[in-house]
């Protein structure tokens, strides 16, 4: 058996383990913890969206929360108006993806540099925050849904079985949907990256000029990657809105935008599992910080981000992979040397 066969087998086993974990979780933990894990899973999808566009498309978006928030608001408005969540979920993906298309057109076809891109995406988020924050009056409503401004939108209808508004999912089923969505998004992104499109995207990340000279259009490819990322972030927003049945403008806030960047930086850029791990770790940490008074969570997150940028730029997962690789190489060399000396011994005899 070769190394790649082994790796594939390991991946299949990991996938099966993840599915099994989602399936048995409700029997193993309390309902409070299950809700917490549902939130982690929704946020992990958001982390995947940035891990994908930044790690594989080379697009550093400082405002991934813009799409997350748009997804949540689109779901909330549509679900209140339709009374059925089926179309609302579709809109929660399509509206942010459409917004990403328009914004991405201006950014990528303007051929602006990475730095400007970061600044513009950050600014978009801040402006959306201000805009939604100011819609508190009763005149700001879309159909039956009042936007609520800084008060947010309470009592959003939960997900129901497709086409059957009377059957609303309970928390346990919502966990299955959220956890399942996380695994599905992960697998689909993996498949996308293995396809021709994914390889072109990575080639453009590595060297945009060379890819362009070989006949690929970096602008179009980057735009497509950005739109996919926006749609995924929108889906995460939809699941988040379902988790709390509440959205408020704070999901557009700088604090959350920074947190996503920290998840990906801590977990490891250029991997898909890294952002998921980083997301769960940091969320857990923030939840723990919330239980005490001495340290402010911003303070801790800021220190973590600075420390990783200065000291451990690659992030946890690639560092672990490196160490693991070195360990295996070391063991192999040891084994080789033992075999050699055994051979020499035999020859001597």
């Amino acid at each position, binding site marked *: 058996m070769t190394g790649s066969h082994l790796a594939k087998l390991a991946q299949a086993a990991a996938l099966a383990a993840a599915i099994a974990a989602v399936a048995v979780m409700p029997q193993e933990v309390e309902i409070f913890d299950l809700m917490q894990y549902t939130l982690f899973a929704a946020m992990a999808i958001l982390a995947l969206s940035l891990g994908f566009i930044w790690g594989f498309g080379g697009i550093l978006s400082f405002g991934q929360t813009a799409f997350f928030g748009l997804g949540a608001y689109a779901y909330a408005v549509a679900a209140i108006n339709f009374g059925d969540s089926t179309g609302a979920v579709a809109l929660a993906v399509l509206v942010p993806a459409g917004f990403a298309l328009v914004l991405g057109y*201006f950014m990528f076809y303007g051929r602006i540099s990475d730095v400007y891109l970061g600044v*513009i995406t950050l*600014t978009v988020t801040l402006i959306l925050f201000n805009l939604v924050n100011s819609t508190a009056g009763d005149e700001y409503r879309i159909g039956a849904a009042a936007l609520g401004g800084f008060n947010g939108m309470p009592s959003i209808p939960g997900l129901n079985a497709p086409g059957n508004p009377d059957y609303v999912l309970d928390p346990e089923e919502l966990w299955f949907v959220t956890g399942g969505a996380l695994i599905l998004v992960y697998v689909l992104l993996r498949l996308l990256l293995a396809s021709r499109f994914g390889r072109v995207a990575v080639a453009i990340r590595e060297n945009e000029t060379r890819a362009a000279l070989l006949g690929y259009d970096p602008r179009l490819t980057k735009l497509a990657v950005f739109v996919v990322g926006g749609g995924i972030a929108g889906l995460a927003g939809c699941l988040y809105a379902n988790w709390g049945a509440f959205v408020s403008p704070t999901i557009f806030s700088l604090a959350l935008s920074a947190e996503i*960047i920290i998840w990906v930086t801590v977990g490891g850029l250029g991997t898909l599992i890294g952002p998921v791990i980083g997301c769960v770790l940091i969320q857990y940490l923030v939840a723990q910080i919330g239980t005490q008074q001495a340290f402010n969570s*911003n303070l801790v997150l*800021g220190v973590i981000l600075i420390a990783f940028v200065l000291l451990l730029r690659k992030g946890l997962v690639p560092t672990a992979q490196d160490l693991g690789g070195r360990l295996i190489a070391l063991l192999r060399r040891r084994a080789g040397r033992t075999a050699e000396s055994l051979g020499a011994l035999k020859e001597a005899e």
Partner: protein
Amino acid sequence: MELAAILTLDVLNGVASLILLCTGLAIIFGMMRIINLAHGEFLMLGAYATVVSANAGVNIWVAMLVVAPLFVGAVSLVVERCLIRFLYGRLVDTMLATWGLSLFIVGLVTTIYGNTIQGVPTPLGGFSIGAYRSSLYTLFLVAMAALLLAAVWAVLRYTRLGLIARATMQNPNMAAALGVSPNRVYMATFAVGAAITGLAGGLLAPVSGVVPTMGAAYVAKAFITVVGGGSAILAGTASAAGLFGFINQMAAYLTTPVFGEVTLFVSAIILIRVLPQGISGRFFGRSL
């Protein structure tokens, strides 16, 4: 007529506060090619320095014009030595690290002063044009913005320091070969840019609510103006601030302040699509 006068004053005020907000950021960006994402927090530190020292009995003008820039300049020196200098040439990492810094500063100030709004009374009185009233402080802000631009221009154009700064900006390696240490120039640039930002924070403290998260309200405008202005420090900042300030105030007058910001932002995105190098990259290629 009276309405026109008061509107002009509003536009001037908008442009002036944009200039005050952006000049420090533009200097750091133009000279060092790094975007300081902790810009809003430097502003906030300037405002806090003013409020705290004014409440401790320091004269309000001294607190705004002396304490705030000196304090933020000193903080930025520490930041540059401990953080930024390891990241020269790594653009994206600088942005990430300064973002971490911004979170850290917000967390620290929240821990010390709490999440409550502080303030100082607005100095100077008001005056009226016909049926409309406005405050003299607005005029003072306009004058300060003009003075700041003039001072930066004079330093860059006429002093030896300015010559060294411009040389380093154009070609750091050649400047280094001629005996200038680019690292030292960068350090000084960062401190001067931050001190100007601190001054802006101090000047804006009387007219805004001083909270640890106040930076976020200003950074969006500041970043988009600097990016829209392009790399020329003075021509870029002045032209972009003029254009965006006008658009912002007019749209705010016609609709609401928030939609004024949205209009500013949408026009900025379109501008960047048409002129990716910013206004100064297209029209004032060789100016300061």
